């Protein structure tokens, strides 16, 4: 996946309201590391169904950051986790790192 996070959805939503953009990024900065950690904890404890729910929640953040291809990847990963397969863990971790470093910089 070569795509990069972007703020187009947030800009579109805010209509130029910078205060809203700042508030939203503040909440994303707080929630994204928490939700990422919850996913890691669920993977570590082997609870794939809960890990799928964590991926489900993270999908919203993925879409907010304009990552369309990654969103489809996350959909597949969520389905696989619900079926008991965890073969995309590494790739999903890379995606989280990409998003975490983007929101940190923004």
């Amino acid at each position, binding site marked *: 996946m070569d795509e990069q996070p972007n703020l187009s959805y947030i800009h579109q*939503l805010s209509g130029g309201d910078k205060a809203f953009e700042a508030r939203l990024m503040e909440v994303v900065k707080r929630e994204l590391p928490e939700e990422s950690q919850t996913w890691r904890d669920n993977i570590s404890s082997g609870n794939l169904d809960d890990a799928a729910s964590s991926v489900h929640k993270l999908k919203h953040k993925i879409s907010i950051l304009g990552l369309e291809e990654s969103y489809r990847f996350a959909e597949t990963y969520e389905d696989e986790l619900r079926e008991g397969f965890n073969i995309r863990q590494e790739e999903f971790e890379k995606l989280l790192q990409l998003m975490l470093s983007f929101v940190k910089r923004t």
Partner: protein
Amino acid sequence: MKCLIIDDEATARLIIQQLIENNKHVEMEQEFPNAMQAIKFLNQNSADLIFLDIHMPDFTGFDFIQTLKNPPNVILTTSDKSFAIEAFEYDCIVDYLVKPITQERFDKAVQKALSSKASSSKPEVESDLNKTDNDLYVNIDRRLIKIDISSIYLIEAKGDYITIKTFGKNYTVHSTLKKIEEKLPQDIFLKIHRSFIINTKKIIDIEDNSVLIEKDVIPVSRSNRPELMKRLNLL
């Protein structure tokens, strides 16, 4: 329209607030990170419209709707397209928004809620028409087959089909629990789970969160348990 937001994700709540602010027809009343807090609020207050997340820990959006006697209009907000079919089972659900929600799509959903509110003042005419009938006719392989309602002990939803279990035979029909529920006497039949309606007169025993009926053990969802307990003639 005064509206509520129920979503366990703060980011989602903030985005919906922004969408509300940009729409002249809706006004933000309260937001809740879980369904329980919203139920408490609705016990003493009212709302015209609820933006409701489906996936929430402990209590899903559908569980929440089932706890309300007269639910206001609901617009579902979700990252999952797969619940769209289930959403049609609930009359109060006017639209289904897949995240990330755009302003244009949001405005369209609000418009649907407005139209629905305008038509909801129509009197309900046909509510109990068929409920006093003793028989139910189901369409199987182009034949209308008569089922004696009193012989039904369980109805189970399986995707787009329901299985009607009677003491003599089981019937699988293309229908929904919502539709058949409207045809059954409400004082006897009760939906105890998203996928099951039971004949309460045929219960053998109840243990924790399940009911034994004939040879089937059926789960009771937390939201339906109070109504089930109300129906029992407890010593």
